């Protein structure tokens, strides 16, 4: 994980180094100050030596200003280094997701990807900033304060030798006791948020079935769980403040007691005693900070792992090394193709598929919900890789093509389709960013979208809202078809893309496609017989297998499944 994350520091390495260096410098000066002040008390104030006070005072002032500047410098560099690192992490994650294949996309939900890019990155950013500033500062302070106290009074510094390990053990104990609770709390939060999310989204269902009480009960259970764990965590964590105050004060009192003895014995001066108080503060302060940041850094480790999982995810489909960049016809061959969505699945989604589709042919695919119609066509633009057999387009295995070449030539209109925020035109240009206005209008005409687009007040410049909610389902489908047509593909796949379009319009779209792109291989998945009736051949899918292939007339006669579907639909006309 750390290795993965470290790669994202890149151009912020220099800043990341500047911060700890500045911090070390700052702490060095800071730890010298009490020593010098002690000298000032003994040799200046106690002896009434005014010129010594002024000299040393001047030195001290300069030192303070230097320490202030380097401390401020460390803060600024660490903040920018961490922000830059976070930006790189987001960048790496986003860019990497763009290389994901469908298989990878199925694995992460988009909501989880969004959280990883925001909340998790922010956690790591905060920890990183701590790591290059406070995590350097606190141990340095500890070491220097102990060193200085040994220099001032070796005997008194024995107080630290005894107290520091005890304190450290207490702190480690507290951290160890509290840490296992936090992952549980986070899981509790996940459950709580899920309940809220499902209730906000499904509020109509909740109200329809009058399930408010049951949902409230469930929510309370989740909230109670968090409360109990948190209360427990608070009891443990609060021990820290108790331990800090007690140990700090005990050490001060011990210094008072032994220090007085030493002064009376002539082994220590009053000024040195004052500096010892200062060092004792610093030692315990540093330990406390260490305990605090270690908890936070451990907590952010899980965020780090979640980020690394996204970056380390191996794209299931990669561009071949020497790709074929030329695709010159729409010939498709399925050769003993089998496929399942997940390694461990019992059911194969596709079983031993053999099919040859000639360039320019129109193929209809029909079958029940869940018969793997969409899965079958997903193999053509290589959205998934087959598990057995091969898919060949224009004579080459799809795996040998440059992905962009393949997908530009195989236009697929997805069943679950989306428009993006922007104008209608900017959405259509996704198909071909260099398309002229004429080409855009032509594609829209073929997809029968030009009519309603021109009726809109702003025409092709009409703004599409996020999610495309301001156009109807049928309009959206026609726009997504037009978007695909702009690619001028060799193969066009319509995956139930006209389900919300009325039959008359649909027929016109089919006719326009035949007329405007005669050479394109057209594959149409539909649940309606009328949509595929005129196809050159129709493939009947059943539970992941091709049950039959033939023309409408042939299938009506010999295929039971097909003829029952046809009969049902005939009846309901």
């Amino acid at each position: 994980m750390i290795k993965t994350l470290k790669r994202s520091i890149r151009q912020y390495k220099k800043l990341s180094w500047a911060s700890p260096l500045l911090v070390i410098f700052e702490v060095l000066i800071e730890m010298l100050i009490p020593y010098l002040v002690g000298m000032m008390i003994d040799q200046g104030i106690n002896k009434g030596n005014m010129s010594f006070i002024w000299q040393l005072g001047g030195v001290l002032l300069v030192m303070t200003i230097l320490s202030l500047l380097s401390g401020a410098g460390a803060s600024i560099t660490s903040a920018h280094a961490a922000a830059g690192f976070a930006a790189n992490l987001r960048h790496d994650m986003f860019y990497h997701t763009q290389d994901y294949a469908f298989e990878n996309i199925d694995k992460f939900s988009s909501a989880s990807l969004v959280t990883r890019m925001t909340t998790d990155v922010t956690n790591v950013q905060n920890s990183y900033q701590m790591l290059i500033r406070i995590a350097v500062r606190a141990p340095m302070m500890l070491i220097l304060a102990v060193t200085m106290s040994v220099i001032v009074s070796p005997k008194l510094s024995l107080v630290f030798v005894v107290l520091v390990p005890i304190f450290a053990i207490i702190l480690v104990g507290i951290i160890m006791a509290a840490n296992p609770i936090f992952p549980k709390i986070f899981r509790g939060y996940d459950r709580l948020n899920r309940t809220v999310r499902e209730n906000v989204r499904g509020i109509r269902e909740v109200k329809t079935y009058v399930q408010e009480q049951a949902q409230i009960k469930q929510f309370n259970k989740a909230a109670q769980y968090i409360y109990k764990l948190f209360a427990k965590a608070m009891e443990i964590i609060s021990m820290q403040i108790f331990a800090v105050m007690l140990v700090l004060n005990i050490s001060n009192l011990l210094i008072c007691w032994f220090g007085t003895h030493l002064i009376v014995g002539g082994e220590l001066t009053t000024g040195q005693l004052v500096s010892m108080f200062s060092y004792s503060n610093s030692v315990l302060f540093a330990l406390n900070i260490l305990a605090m940041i270690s908890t936070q850094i451990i907590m952010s480790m899980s965020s780090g792992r979640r980020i690394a999982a996204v970056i380390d995810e191996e794209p299931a489909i990669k561009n071949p090394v020497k790709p074929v960049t030329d695709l010159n016809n729409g010939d498709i061959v399925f050769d003993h193709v089998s496929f399942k969505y997940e390694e461990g699945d019992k059911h194969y989604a596709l079983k031993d598929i053999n099919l040859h589709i000639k360039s320019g042919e129109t193929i209809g695919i029909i079958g029940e919900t869940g018969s793997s119609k969409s899965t079958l066509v997903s193999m053509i633009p290589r959205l998934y890789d087959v598990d057995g057999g091969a898919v060949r387009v224009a004579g080459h295995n799809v795996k040998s093509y440059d992905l962009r070449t393949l997908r530009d030539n195989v236009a697929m209109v997805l069943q679950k389709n989306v428009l993006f925020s922007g104008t209608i035109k900017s959405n259509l240009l996704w198909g071909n960013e260099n398309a002229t206005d004429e080409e855009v209008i032509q594609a829209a005409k073929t997809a029968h979208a030009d009519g309603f687009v021109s009726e809109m007040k702003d025409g092709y410049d009409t703004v599409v809202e996020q999610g495309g909610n301001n156009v109807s389902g049928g309009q959206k489908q026609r726009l997504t078809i037009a978007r695909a047509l702009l690619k001028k593909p060799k193969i066009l796949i319509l995956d139930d893309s006209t389900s919300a379009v009325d039959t008359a319009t649909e027929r016109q779209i089919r006719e326009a496609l035949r007329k405007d792109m005669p050479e394109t291989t057209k594959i149409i998945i539909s649940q309606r017989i009328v949509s595929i009736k005129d196809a050159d051949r129709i493939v009947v899918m059943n539970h992941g297998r091709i049950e039959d292939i033939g023309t409408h007339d042939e299938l009506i006669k010999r295929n039971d499944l097909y003829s029952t579907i046809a009969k049902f639909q005939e009846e309901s006309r």
Partner: protein
Amino acid sequence: MSSLENVKTQPKRTAALGRLLKLIMETSPWMVIVSAIGVIVSAAAQVAGSLFIEDLINNFVEPLLKQKTPDYAPLLRAILIMLSIYVVGAICAYLYSVLMGILAQRVQFKVRRQMFKHMQYLPLAYFDQNEYGDIMSRYTNDIDTLMQMISQSIPQFLNSVLSLVFVVCAMFSVSWQLTIFSFIIFALSFGIVRYLTTKSGQNFKIQQKKLGQINGYNEEMLNGLKVVKVFSHEAEAEAGFDKYNEELRQASGRANAYATVLFPIMGNMGNLLYVLISIVGGAAAIHNWAPLSLGAIAAFLQLSRQFSMPIAQISQQLNSIVMALAGAARIFEVMDTPEESDEGQVTIKSDENVKSAWHWQLPQADGSVKQVPVRGHIVFDDVNFSYFPGQEILHHINIDAKPGMKVALVGETGAGKTTISNMLNRFYDIDSGTITYDGIPLEQIKKDDLRQSVTIVLQETHLFTGTIMENIRFGRPGASDDEVYQAAKLSHADEFIHDLDDGYETVIDGNGGDLSQGQMQLLSIARAMISDEPVMILDEATSSIDTRTEKVVQQGMDNLLSGRTSFVIAHRLSTIVNSDLILVLDHGRIIEHGNHEELLAQKGYYYELYTGKREIQ
């Protein structure tokens, strides 16, 4: 602009603060009081420790130096007294930290519970007007900052204020001259701190905004990632991302720089004060400007260390308190939104064990209750409705759905089909006219009971995390396993459920996971079937199911619908041709009504639709 905003939000925040304090007090008065005492005592103990140094040097070290045989007994006594003060202080610190932490959790729990409970009874209009992400962030961000404020900001703020007060008092008691000198530094630091915390506050706001923007962009692009892939549009998506990412980087760097630079500055201001006091104090002692003992200078040096940190703390906690109050105001806003009104008196009783045994409980004048079977006669009489005043959506709707009738609603998107169905179970209240159910005006029926007797199956299916079994049983929690299987078979969901690895025990998450849209619709139909209610509304309930399956489901549904009054909204006319009554809607008006044959004979809108001359948009 920002000042205008301030004027508006200021009273809101003040009100929120008052309400919040009341809420905290109500949750546990003794915890608050004990914590407050704890804060005071622990702050006082800390200051007492610093003063002890003066005592030590002046009253013990120096006299002891003069004694021939030093007597340490009084010193030991003094140290033991100090030790007990420290122990008490530490215990108090532990107490307030634990209590405030637990109290914060309790308040959080309480607020969450109240908010969720309240939310469940908010009218649907609330969910239409507020975005999902916005509602969600009240549960997460707003409550989190609120908890932070109670458990950390408030005690730390109080602790810092008290420490500062005690320290200043102690300083005065040691030497008023040096204290006045320190005040100059104090004023200087306070100015710097205020500047830095204000700046960082502003920049954090900008950072939040940028974070929101990149969030929105990511959500859209990652949701449509499959489309991005199909169109090889990766490079363009990346370019858009880079812009937001760079803006966020800059904003975040600035915000954090301002926030972090505060610590070294305050720490070194402390050092500066430390050095200056030793110089000035030394000079004053030597030149006898002020009566300063060595012990006093030493104590003062120690005090000056405790002087600068509280100032930084106060300023910082002030920022987070203000932020948390804005969140609290947003939470209270939810709780203040009026719940759905329910003045209905008439209830419906159903027998869990007997199917279709729904009875009206009609209160009689003599106080008794008359039981009448529910028949499902729905009448709309001149109903008008608007979501927003002045924008009427439904105009003069008249429907007479006799018991057992299948009524179909046909029309374009936005014609008002779904709106009519929403009127029926009072998701919204009508503006004028009346709707009656077996002759009883809807508003006289208790809302829960009304809804329990009217099922809606929506086009967009929402499932809840849990097993398939639990999701079907959502329709009627009392249903037996056999009844669930029965409903699943009737709705044709049984087949695909058996194909799943764990059958009915398969756990699905709220998004439906691997289920297709069609399969989710089958589940939601099964859910409706098991609920067994006298009136059913099917709002595009089968739009994602293939026609053959739909046909099979239809048979099961027709069985189910027989004897019940049903309203069917469907895109495919095939599913509604056998309806008893078809209503054609256009722009919120019923323009044609009758059965299939009658409407075809009219050769109007419906005829054009059916023959494909007109399309539904």
